[in-house]
């Protein structure tokens, strides 16, 4: 199942991905409907008709206003939710020939543990607050069949050091940490098995500017040194400008524009993107 990442093939290819919340009805599938809410059954599309590709070593930004479907998309990719339609192919999983949403639940768990890492906006969702920070990293290693305590401790210590967590605190519970430290523990946990793809959901929300800068520096350094693909979801164009190579703009659950980040920010084509760029403080 594990294959080296090819540089020619995209690391992740998403085709026509959609997530609907609600029971659904035949009217929900009418493509031309402008409104994402179905007036007949009350269902709502979190995201719809999402096509995107991520290459190894590349950072893809997803930007949009609150409620535009960014997190729904990421949660589908990390199997927190199952999509209503569409497919995603991850190159390390059967060389990208199999739709990961059709994988067995055991395979999905293996994909989550070995090929993907996720950093949630809310650390409560990504960390076990009652366990130590090193334990949070070790859990991912155990899931990947590490059963040597010494090796796991060394790996956890190395990762948490890279994340600038003081060595004296790696056995403390994340509940005793500041928001910035919790996010860094989440990143260490996500990177535990050296996944080829990292998903980052609004990781700087709620952090002050100096802590934001440290976390962003860390992400850039990891991407440069580890050469892994990343999807960064944010509503902050500053984060997108600083981190990403390419950017996707989402509105009402759909992609309205995508391209190189500089191009998107300097010469936005879609009216919503123009409004987004010009509404910078």
């Amino acid at each position: 199942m594990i294959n080296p990442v090819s540089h020619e093939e995209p690391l992740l290819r998403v085709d026509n991905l959609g997530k609907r919340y609600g029971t659904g009805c035949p009217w929900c599938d009418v493509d031309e409907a402008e409104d994402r809410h179905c007036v007949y059954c009350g269902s709502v599309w979190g995201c719809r008709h999402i096509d995107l590709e991520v290459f190894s070593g590349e950072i893809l930004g997803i930007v949009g206003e609150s409620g535009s479907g960014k997190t729904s998309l990421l949660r589908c990719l990390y199997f927190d939710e199952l999509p209503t339609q569409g497919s995603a192919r991850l190159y390390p999983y059967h060389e990208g020939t199999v739709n990961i949403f059709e994988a067995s639940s055991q395979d999905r768990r293996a994909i989550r543990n070995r090929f993907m890492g996720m950093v949630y906006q809310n650390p409560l969702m990504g960390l076990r607050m009652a366990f130590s920070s090193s334990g949070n990293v070790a859990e991912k290693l155990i899931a990947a069949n590490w059963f040597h305590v010494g090796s796991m401790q060394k790996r956890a210590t190395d990762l948490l050091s890279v994340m600038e967590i003081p060595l004296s605190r790696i056995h403390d519970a994340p509940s005793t940490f500041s928001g910035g430290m919790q996010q860094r523990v989440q990143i260490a946990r996500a990177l535990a098995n050296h996944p080829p793809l990292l998903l980052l959901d609004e990781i700087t929300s709620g952090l002050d500017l100096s802590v934001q800068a440290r976390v962003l520096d860390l992400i850039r350094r990891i991407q440069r040194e580890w050469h892994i693909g990343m999807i960064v979801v944010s509503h902050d164009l500053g984060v997108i400008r600083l981190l990403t190579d390419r950017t996707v703009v989402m509105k009402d659950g759909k992609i309205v524009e995508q391209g190189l980040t500089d191009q998107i920010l300097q010469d936005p084509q879609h009216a919503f993107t123009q409004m987004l760029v010009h509404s910078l403080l």
Partner: protein
Amino acid sequence: MKSPYNFAYLDEGSKKEVRRAVLKAVAIPGFQVPFGSRELPIGRGWGTGGLQLTLSLIGPTDRIKVIDQGDDDSVNAVSIRNLVVATAHIETTDMSDQATIIQSRHRIPDEPLRPGQILILQVPQPEPLRPVEPRERETRRMHAERDYSAVWLGLYEDIVRFGQITTGADYPAVVHHRYMIKPTPIPRWDLPKLHQAPFLTLFGAGRERKIYAIPPYTDVEPVAFEDYGFETEKFPVACGLCGSREAYLDEVLGAVGQDRTYQCSDTAYCRKRRDQMEKGNI
């Protein structure tokens, strides 16, 4: 005078349901089979799961032994034994080798059991994943996918914080290389007795409405890391009464508080050894 109760208290339909659950549990070693736990004239949490198994399995020719933490004469053991005798009129015994069914709480007899015997253990909490996952639906998924990393994590945390695994009783184990179980709060000392055991072990949780089983000659492996293996308790001395060094010992504090002695937890085993000592066989 005719007994006002059905044989072995439970009605035949209830017994049949419990037996059906037992058959499924034996067929899938370590899998927790839900069953309709009945009301009994003892409180939930006092051995109703084990008692329902016992009442469903005994026949007129069976001989039962009931122990509570190794003791045949504790209040709980005596009450359960009296209930079984009052409703099934079968023989009871203190000797492990003479019993066909042994119902126990928190201990496995120190005398080796033989093929054909049934050991029934009372279970307070059957779910090894419950401390880390409160949702039943989620624990079922985790069992289905063998997602036991959270249990391993608990042991890892023990080692990181205390330098060793501190779980004394109810040490998690994997049955038949598949399902993780809680072997009830038996001490670690007893856990190796379940590995490739010649007897059938049944676990009944009345309050939680679950039955699971370890069929004879089944692998039972305690959860252990490569560099921190499973260890049983070690005792510094022999039993103060029978001199055994091969039994699980209870620590007994003297009246003064300073002096402490050790004696066998399994009272029947200890008594048998002392009888043999008197006869000069040991």
